[in-house]
């Protein structure tokens, strides 16, 4: 393992992210914060939703921000860099095993996902105002889940970015991301699906479910949620699975 090269690759991604900072911030925070404002402030404030909904919504919004950011941060550059211009070529030719080039992308995406997740909490807090009930009783567990969520997002970004062509980006969002968010227990807890037993089972293939439920379990444990060990196992499995698939797809794309 060649750390100098690995760190230089990370420095390059950090440099590019800094250059696109404003776009990156808007892209990461605008949509979740608008959601927080409309559902948490307008709907709750006007009495259409109960006050407790604020606390239920925040972990879900955090999960969406992290997953979106992680996937976007890894998949979009990869899709662009692997098209006919082959911009990634200079990194594939760097003196490091090409699997590490992919892992570097995952680490960069993971960091962005973490920053997004941890920044959206105070921002949402400000927007939601009083009445937010968060109980961070097990901070280590919360951090662990946050890391696992950022991890599967970045690994998912790697797998998607190496499987989708540029002309199919729109399709990727409407076919993968949108259903993932709406069936991801982000705006409602998993227990809310009790009346839809088939759907309740089906959504368990969606990793975002464990992200929302896991963050809810550690930030707002007063709501009913999936059991924590089960969440931890599922998130770990998704991390490993998506990493393995992502690395394989990356190798396929990188070497002809």
């Amino acid at each position, binding site marked *: 393992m060649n750390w100098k*090269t690995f760190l230089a690759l990370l420095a390059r991604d950090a*440099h590019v992210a800094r250059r696109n900072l404003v776009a990156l911030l808007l892209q990461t925070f605008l949509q979740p914060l608008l959601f927080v404002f409309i559902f948490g402030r307008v709907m709750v404030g006007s009495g259409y939703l109960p006050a407790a909904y604020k606390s239920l919504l925040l972990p879900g919004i955090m999960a969406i921000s992290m997953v979106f950011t992680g996937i976007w941060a890894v998949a979009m550059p990869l899709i662009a860099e692997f098209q006919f211009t082959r*911009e990634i070529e*200079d990194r594939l030719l760097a*003196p*490091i095993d090409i699997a590490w080039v992919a892992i570097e992308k995952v680490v960069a995406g993971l960091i962005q996902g973490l920053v997004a997740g941890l920044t959206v909490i105070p921002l949402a807090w400000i927007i939601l105002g009083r009445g937010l009930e968060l109980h961070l009783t097990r901070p280590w567990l919360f951090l662990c889940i946050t890391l696992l969520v950022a991890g599967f997002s970045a690994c998912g970004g790697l797998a998607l970015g190496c499987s989708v062509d540029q002309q199919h980006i729109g399709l990727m969002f409407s076919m993968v991301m949108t259903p993932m968010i709406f069936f991801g227990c982000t705006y409602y807890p998993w227990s809310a699906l009790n009346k839809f037993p088939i759907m309740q089972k089906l959504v368990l293939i969606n990793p975002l479910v464990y992200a929302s439920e896991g963050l809810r379990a550690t930030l707002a444990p007063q709501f009913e949620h999936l059991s924590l060990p089960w969440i931890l196992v599922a998130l770990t499995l998704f991390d490993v699975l998506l990493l393995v698939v992502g690395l394989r797809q990356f190798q396929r794309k990188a070497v*002809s």
Partner: protein
Amino acid sequence: MNTAIRTQGLRKVYNTAPPAAAGRGDASAADKRGRNSKSQPKPEIKALDGIDLEVAPGQIFGLLGPNGAGKSTTVGILTTRVRPTSGTAWIGEYDVWHDQTAAKRQIGVVAQRPNLDFALTAREILLFHGAYFGIGSQERSERANALLDRFKLTDRADQLVRGFSGGMMQRMSIARAMMHDPQVLFLDEPSVGLDPQTRLLLWEIIREYNQKGRTILLTTHNMEEADTLCEQLAIIDHGRIIAQGTPGELKASIPGGYLLRLRFGHHSAPLLERLGTLAGVTEVRAFGESGADLYAGRGGSLIPEVVNAAAALGVELSDVHISEPSLENLFLHHTGRSLRE
């Protein structure tokens, strides 16, 4: 290190369409397997069919051939970007496939199409490239400045390369490949799309780099480039090497490859007949009032005999032009088709 580049029995069969930059390969050689009538046999494209190469350190080696001959696939394998179906390739002592990282340290690569990092400026591309190879920050910026200057890119150094012209991108790709001072430099069709002036600059830079003892492998379908730049050439067609040697040797291998354009005071049938009997002459054609074209296996050494033959018949030789056998003719001779086809 006895050889800078070595390949043994290199074969590459694509069962999907090869990437554009890796050439078209030989589709006519598709394997007809079709074991199972239900599953469509994948179309197999044989891009390389047993390539054996040996390039000595410090040499400028040219791979010459038409589009789709397998030049880019060979470079792709040698630069770790293409997995060989069988056979082995070494850069120095490193097996390219099994010791990729060590091999990558030895090489600089200029791909057929510029593949610059569009998110960065020209200077940043060089600086980050240097960083990937672990070069210290001060040395990195010194080298970047020197290269930007050498490639006449200093005034655009801090602009994103996205807006560069094709020629500038090409120069930038070459500068980047030289940034970590690799032992072996690969240039895949380096002068395609360059204006004549830039091409000359590029040739000058290639020679200069070679004089530092570095090995250079370039692919081209440009005869002039192969002829003026390369010390050794391999002519490749349909994934096989069909001839190998110095440009001079290769050209000498064509029978009657020289053309001597002669002009006399006047000429006569006996003179033409006499010229036709000279050793090495394969064909004599009269042109104009007093000219004759001699196709022969040798050039300058034939002149005294031509002068003597003419003098014996009382004719004076007034003008001689010798054109050397060209690689174009050589390719035609070996494959029966022109390089530009």
